[in-house]
């Protein structure tokens, strides 16, 4: 199997050591860091995303894969930047006020980071004011909001309204997600997009940045 396919396979199996060894071998063979990322690590994540949507793999496998991806990225990112490559964009992410769920939010953050975004994670139970504050401080391209409770999805609109109130709405794309969130709700509250899972969030974020994945 070619190295890139082996790397994709190692990521899908969440094998960190194998993935790191394959990256070293690929670099030694003269494969560019960008190609190892796109056709190795990210290709693996994308295939896993398809399997996840078909229920063939589950959260632990995706978490392990995301971990392998991020370890690989630590080696590749400096090389890509050195070669003149750029980050796709900057993301601020957090779970809204009143809600402490973070498994899904973390997964989205890891995947975005893996696919080349700079990710600033504000954690859980983040107030609308803190989101606005982070926007002023970090000037992100994308704001990702997570809500997992039927009692806290109302807070998504609260954050979007606060961002608008602060006069920052046209500077950022806002994505929303979480088990009770639907695309209808996303439209109703004036978000720019909704994603069903971490893989879809990554695709959508890339699309919004005008970058085909």
């Amino acid at each position, binding site marked *: 199997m070619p190295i890139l396919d082996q790397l994709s396979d190692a990521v899908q199996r*969440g094998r960190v050591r194998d993935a790191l060894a394959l990256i070293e071998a690929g670099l030694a063979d003269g494969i560019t860091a960008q190609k190892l990322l796109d056709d190795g690590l990210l290709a693996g994540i994308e295939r896993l995303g398809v399997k996840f949507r*078909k229920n*063939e793999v*589950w*959260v632990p*496998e995706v978490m392990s894969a995301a971990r392998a991806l991020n370890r690989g990225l630590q080696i590749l990112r400096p090389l890509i930047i050195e070669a003149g490559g750029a980050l796709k964009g900057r993301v601020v992410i957090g779970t809204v*006020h009143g*809600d*402490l769920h973070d498994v899904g939010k973390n997964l989205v953050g890891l995947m975005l980071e893996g696919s080349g975004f700079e990710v600033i994670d504000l954690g859980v139970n983040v107030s609308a004011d803190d989101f606005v504050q982070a926007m002023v401080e970090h000037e992100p391209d994308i704001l990702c909001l997570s809500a997992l*409770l039927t009692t806290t999805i109302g807070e998504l609109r609260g954050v979007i309204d606060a961002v608008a109130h602060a006069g920052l709405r046209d500077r950022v794309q806002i994505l929303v997600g979480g088990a009770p969130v639907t695309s209808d709700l996303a439209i109703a509250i004036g978000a720019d997009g909704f994603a069903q899972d971490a893989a879809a969030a990554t695709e959508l974020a890339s699309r919004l940045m005008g970058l085909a994945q």
Partner: protein
Amino acid sequence: MDKVTATQTGLLSDALDAAGHHLPMPCRGRRTCGKCGVYVAGVTVPADEHEAALLARYPQPELPGYAFRLACMCQIRGTVAVVTSSIAGVVVADVGMELISYDGTEPQSLGCAIDIGTTTVTLLIFRLGDRELLAEVSQLNHQVAYGSDVLSRIDATATVGSARLQDVIVTQLTGMLDTALRQTGAQATDITRMTITGNTTMLHLLDGLPVRSLGVYPFTPQTLFGETRPARDIFPGLINAELYLPPGISTYVGPDVVCGLLATGVGAAGQAELLVDVGTNGEMAVSDGDRLWCCSTAAGPAFEGAEISAGMPALPGAIEDVWLADDGRIGYRTIARKRPKGICGSGLISAVSTFLDAKLVDETGAMRGTAIEIGNSGISLTQADVRRLQLAKAAIAAGIDTLLAEAGKQAEELSVLHLAGGFGSYMSSESAVGIGLLPPTLIERVSASGNAALTGAVLLTLSRESRGIAEQRAARAEEVGLATHPVFMDRYIEQMSFSGDDNV
């Protein structure tokens, strides 16, 4: 308590079955679980070593004239009288296994204990002096029209108001009380004591209190109850009765859990024990014999058969048990032996445990193909069903792991694992261990405690003194917040695999 007589020579369980009295047999009579205990009077063959060993594990209080035996092993010779406890645990009691008995002055007067479950409401009427059960009424909580889980009920109050949900439950309880009184031929005025338990939200709704703060972090309740008041405040006809509302520990570890602690004795001095109530919200408590920790975890409705493609409640026709036969085929049994119509929570656990044994599902939860039929039942589980079970199982198992870590205990250091809740009582502990829901080292120490919340409510009705015990225990309990607990976050992901390992 139920009294039955059975005549036959042979196994007591067979005789009871023939007499039309179907005793729950969690291990299907394989002589492993020790849960089919009953009190027997008459000619019996003395317990052998194996039975004695199982009996020694769960000491029972004495009932004069009767011996406590396991129905699956007790050989009888002729007619015997058998007492099973239908208020399971009224026989068992708190500290030191002493019987908790009525501490009032009117032994002929009646007590009423109610458990308002989010799904099911159960009401008992019994005579206080001799604890004889006179009526039992159980119904689906009529508030289900406003959502099946606690959060959707809280959400509903935003549109219809708390008063509407209060009206629904009070009307339902009034009707249930009338039905029960008719069955007993007694008068409302005969009732002198009443206890109503339930989770913190259910009791807030009973009182018509605002519940919005219960639905968002930091989940602050208006009150944690633990109070006595006149029952006529809620039921105008109960002019002679006092109403006790047991204390809760927090919004998500409520009065129902405290009742469970009282009924099982978890938290009493000296014993290191674990209480697990498996439901939509899994609640658990662990005691090291000195301190007491508790937590609540959102398992979702998979254990109640909801969100499962062929899921159904535990009603006739639901597949409740699945096994791998010696010839390699998959066998199954339905409730009341009716034609298979679907699968309930215990069947789901048992089916997936069997599929794991048969290597039809691997430890990551991946299935061979997209669906697997359970034997020739016509009922299948899909890959998505297995995934839902993995989420539910992970929430409970990681909660147990986190409490044990807080207590600095290994599972094997605990003497008993009390399984509470209707579902917990019918679930086979082997299947539960098979899917990694319960720690394997405790399989021999599982004790099914039935509706422990209701049992606790009975004890609190009988004895005012026990209310002090419950209140002390609630005050002493330390709640472990799982949402931000690092051990929980790690274990939650790891426990999604059936082996419970981090399969990196």
